[in-house]
């Protein structure tokens, strides 16, 4: 252990020399990790913000269940009771067609006064469902209840938007994952080249009795250094861009409903994740290349 710490400066020096020796390969490995992590970071920024937004939308979403005009008072009460006992339902509020019209007039003006005599609206039940359940499934289920004419929810367009975001997010992460694998292999190849170049050195080290760690540590450091720089570049870019956007839009897009996450500590976690991913992929790449050296053979 003491020997390990004593050797650290020398091991770092060797790793540094290796990276300079294969600068172009090192550079392309770093670039590839950078692109993969940049993509992942952008996706993560969007995903984490959208998740917050969709949560706030979904929690506000309510279903409007229109009832057939022919129903009697008892039947209506029965249906309200039936709906409010469903496990997914948080609350169910009955409102008669007269009340609905009053609401309409209140919200949209006097022009609806003309319908006072011949009210075309239905009696409705406003159902709030558990945010974890899909509104679409729930609306289908409610549609099957006897006496229900129509089930509607205001958020259809927003739901669609969320699902588009969702698939974008999935494609983005798949792409970033693929690039990550590619960069691991690039690192592996870079380090394998270094090992080939240093083969004589390694065999002499073995002959004079160098410990395994002394032989493979420089390669691990090289890989992790590549991962570090590969995470550093996109982190700086994303941080700068996010802070700029946040300031420009004053923390919210379009309306209060689309509030952005505050840069701190959001970016801090994001950067930590990027560095962890960079260092980890660097370490995996170098271990893949130097596996033969690590195994204790004679």
């Amino acid at each position, binding site marked *: 252990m003491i020997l390990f710490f004593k050797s650290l400066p020398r091991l770092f020096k060797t790793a540094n020399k290796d990276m300079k020796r294969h600068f172009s390969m090192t550079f392309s490995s770093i670039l590839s990790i950078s692109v993969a992590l940049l993509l992942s970071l952008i996706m993560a920024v969007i995903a984490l913000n959208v998740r917050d937004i969709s949560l706030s939308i979904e929690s506000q979403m309510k279903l409007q269940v229109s009832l057939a005009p022919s129903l009697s008072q008892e039947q209506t009460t029965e249906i309200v009771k039936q709906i409010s006992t469903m496990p997914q339902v948080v609350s169910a509020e009955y409102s008669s067609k007269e009340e609905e019209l009053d609401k309409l007039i209140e919200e949209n003006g006097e022009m609806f006064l003309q319908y006072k005599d011949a009210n075309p609206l239905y009696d409705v039940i406003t159902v709030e469902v558990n945010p974890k359940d899909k509104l679409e499934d729930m609306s289908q289920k409610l549609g099957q209840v006897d006496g229900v004419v129509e089930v509607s929810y205001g958020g259809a367009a927003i739901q669609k938007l969320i699902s588009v975001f969702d698939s974008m997010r999935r494609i983005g992460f798949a792409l970033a994952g693929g690039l990550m694998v590619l960069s691991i292999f690039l690192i592996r190849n870079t380090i394998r080249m270094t090992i080939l170049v240093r083969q004589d050195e390694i065999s*002499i080290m073995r002959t004079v*009795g160098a410990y395994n760690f002394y032989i493979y540590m420089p390669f691990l450091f090289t890989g992790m250094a590549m991962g570090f720089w590969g995470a550093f570049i996109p982190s700086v870019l994303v941080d700068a861009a996010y802070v700029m956007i946040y300031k420009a839009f004053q923390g919210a897009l379009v309306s209060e409903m689309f509030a952005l996450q505050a840069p701190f500590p959001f970016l801090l976690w994001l950067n930590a994740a990027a560095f962890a991913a960079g260092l980890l992929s660097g370490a995996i790449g170098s271990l893949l290349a130097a596996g033969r050296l690590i195994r*204790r053979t004679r």
Partner: protein
Amino acid sequence: MIDLKQVSKSYPKGIHALTGLDLHIDDGEFVYVIGATGSGKSTLVKILNAEEIPDSGSVIVDGVDVGHLKHRKVPKYRRNIGCIFQDYRLLPSLTVYENIAFAMEAVGASKKEIKKRVAEVLELVDLKEKAYSYPDELSGGQQQRVTIARAIVNQPKVLIADEPTGNLDPEKSREIMSLLEKINETLKTTIIMVTHDSAIVDEYKKRTIMLDAGFMVHDFAKGGYKSL
């Protein structure tokens, strides 16, 4: 010091490299190992250097049971064994000084120790003025002397020389032999030298062990090819 009892080693495809070898070498001895190609010389060297594990028998070097050595203990064991090769195996991008220092760096010696010890061995192999030359600026004999310096810099108890004069003319071979004798006498290092060079074996008479097809066929204390 070195004690081999009934050591056998065979390779896949049924090649018997060593068969029932019994050998004892005392501390500070200088021994030649001779024999035709495929006689088992290299296998013997590899077993002593812990590169190969014998199939049966016991190999004790300086109290260490080499055959049953755990993999992680091999590096520490090797520090007691210096190796010299026919093809020198120097690092071309390092100077003579750095090549020798490299062996000490690899085992974690401090800069101060390295500086002191490398100066000592350079003096011993008579290459002080070449300390900052690169290997390709040196003659074959000088390069072999650097290899010897590197092999002894960590003060091993045993020095294994695998055909150290194989690439050298007779005059340079003598230089190397004188140096090995000097190391053997002054440092009391046990030396096992594998060689094909009958002139050297005859001129510098030492205990000579002859291998043939994996068997030890002669162990002659007075030495020399002619006496076999």
